[in-house]
Structures are given as structure tokens and as C-alpha cells.
């Protein structure tokens, strides 16, 4: 039950960079408005970052990206996408994804 120093730094650092974008617009936007290009740029950030993270998760093999070793996750991503589009529910998508991977790993043990 201890908190290591490097883990503590990571937690505090990530907490600060998460806290600022959460509160800053609420605190200052009553005084001035973001320029239009900034709003437009920001509106694409969720899509870019999520797509990049999905790619990284599906193709990664340790710290490197590899196309050869991660067939199960690549395969599981396809039904997971369809379920997300169909149900529009984060919870159902996560549960379905977990079950698909569990079944695939059972059928094709590494």
C-alpha cells in the first residue's frame, strides 16, 4: 500500500493537464471567445486522437507497431465498430468487444 515517487509524478502531472482544459473555458469564456479557427481545430481533436489510439491499440506489439501479430484485436475491432454504430452505447460496445476477444482467444489460442 504505497505510492511510488515516479507513479506519484505521473498521477499529479496527468491530473493537472486534465484539470486545466476541464475548468479553463468555464472560467474565462464569460469574458472572451475562442477564435473560430481554434474552435474548428479543437472540434477535430476527439476524432483524431481516438482514431490514432484505436490504430495504436490494434496494431501495437509492445512499443512497436506490427501488422503480423495482432490478428485477434484487428478481427475483434470489426464487429465492435458495427455494434457501436448500431447501439450508440458505450457500455454495450465495451461489453461486446470484451466478449468477442474472449471468444476469439478461446478459439485461437496464441
Amino acid at each position, binding site marked *: *500500500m504505497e505510492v511510488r515517487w515516479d507513479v506519484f509524478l505521473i498521477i499529479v502531472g496527468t491530473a493537472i493537464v486534465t484539470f486545466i482544459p476541464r475548468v479553463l473555458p468555464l472560467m474565462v469564456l464569460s469574458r472572451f471567445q475562442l477564435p473560430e479557427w481554434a474552435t474548428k481545430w479543437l472540434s477535430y481533436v*476527439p476524432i483524431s*486522437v*481516438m482514431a490514432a*489510439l*484505436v*490504430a495504436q491499440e490494434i496494431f501495437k506489439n509492445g512499443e512497436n507497431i506490427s501488422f503480423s501479430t495482432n490478428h485477434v484485436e484487428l478481427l475483434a475491432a470489426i464487429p465492435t465498430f458495427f455494434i457501436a454504430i448500431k447501439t450508440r452505447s458505450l457500455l454495450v460496445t465495451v*461489453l461486446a468487444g*470484451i466478449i468477442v476477444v474472449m471468444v476469439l482467444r478461446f478459439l485461437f489460442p496464441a
Partner: protein
Amino acid sequence: MGLANDQIETVADSRDKDTFLQGVKDCVPTLLGYLSIGFAAGVIERTAGLSIAEIALMSLILYAGSAQFIAAGMMVASSSITTIIITIFFVNLRHLLLSAALAPYFRHLSPLRNMLVGSLLTDESFGVAINEAAKKNYISEKWMHGLNITAYLNWCAANIAGAFLGQWISNPERLGLDFALTAMFIGLLVLSMLSRKKIARDVVVAIIAVVIAVGASSVLSSSMGVIVATIFASTIGMVMEKWK
């Protein structure tokens, strides 16, 4: 003057009906989501080698599902502290938009009280709040706190419960639990695309992000690849929108 006072009182009355307790109640439909994802995050964090105390601290002060998953995954891959913090910054930059969208409803509050409203903002609580705003044209501060605090407590409880259970799960991969993160990103990606009316442009931006993330990762670390892909793809999206 009497009339003006009456009107002010009527507005104040209707706002008082949106109590803290009503906020708690309106949070209930999202609780199952917090519980299951928080639980999965706790298991993953535990199997990534974090202690219960570290997991508790993380859910209490970081309080962001995807960020907690990613931080745990990057710690396993022994990424540097700076890379982890920069990646989380970009992952959570979307809160700028959520916070900016809520700002007009809380203009009457002081900066400090606005800070309290924003400090527990999540994708889900934003979704509930913006729906409420669409229905009533205002959001009550007390109601917002009820919503936020209920979600926060549930997340922390589920996260710590998952951490305790994680001690007994020796192989979370076999149960597919590691895929919870990927599935959540897929879900968030699809949901954010479906909520806008820019599907074609969004798909182009997403494909560019995937290609850059994969391409850049062969040169840089994969977490730096995500940062580079985010900056490039968002810029291309912005430029495409200007051209139109």
C-alpha cells in the same frame, strides 16, 4: 419594480426545483457505464502493477476513464513520464470543447464556482447536462453538482473495487479485459462522429490519423505517434472545413 421582482423570484423558484437530489437522480442512467468501465480500468491498473493506494489516488485526482487506461498501459510499456503526461494532455484536450459548450449556462457564476462545476466534467455528465440545457434552456448549479458528484463517487468506488478484484485475476488477457480500452476508444470515436453532421470529413480525418499514427510509430515511439497524428489530422480537418 414589483413585477420585475416577481419574475426574478419565479426564475429562482424553478431553478430551486432542480435540486442536488434531482441531479443525483438524473445521473442514474449513466451509472452502469461508470461502474463497468471503472471496474475494468481498476483490474487493468492493478495488473499493470499499480498498488491499491496508487489506483485510489489516480481515480480521485485524475478521474478520467480513457486517461487512466492509457496511463496504466504506458507505464507497462515503460514510457517516460513526460511522454505519458503529453499523451494524456491530448487525450483529455476534448474537455476544452465540453467545458466551452457549457460556459454560456454558467456565466452568472464567479470563476471559482465555475471551476467547481468544471472540475468533475466528463463525457457522460456533459451529455446529460447538455440534454437538460436543450430541454430547459438553463442548467442549475446545484443540479450539476448532484450529477457530477454522483458520477465521481461511483467511478472511484468501481475503480477501487476493480483494483481489489484485479489481485485475483492472473491473466486479464484471457478474459478479453485488455480490449475494454480499445472498445471504449472505438465507441467514443463512433459516438463523436455520429453526434456531428460531418461524417464524410470526419471519416477522412480519422483515416489520416490512423495512417499517420501507424506510419509515425515506425520512426517515433507509438505514444509520440499518437500526438503527431492528432495534431496533423486535426489541422487537416480544420483546413478542409475552411476550403469548403
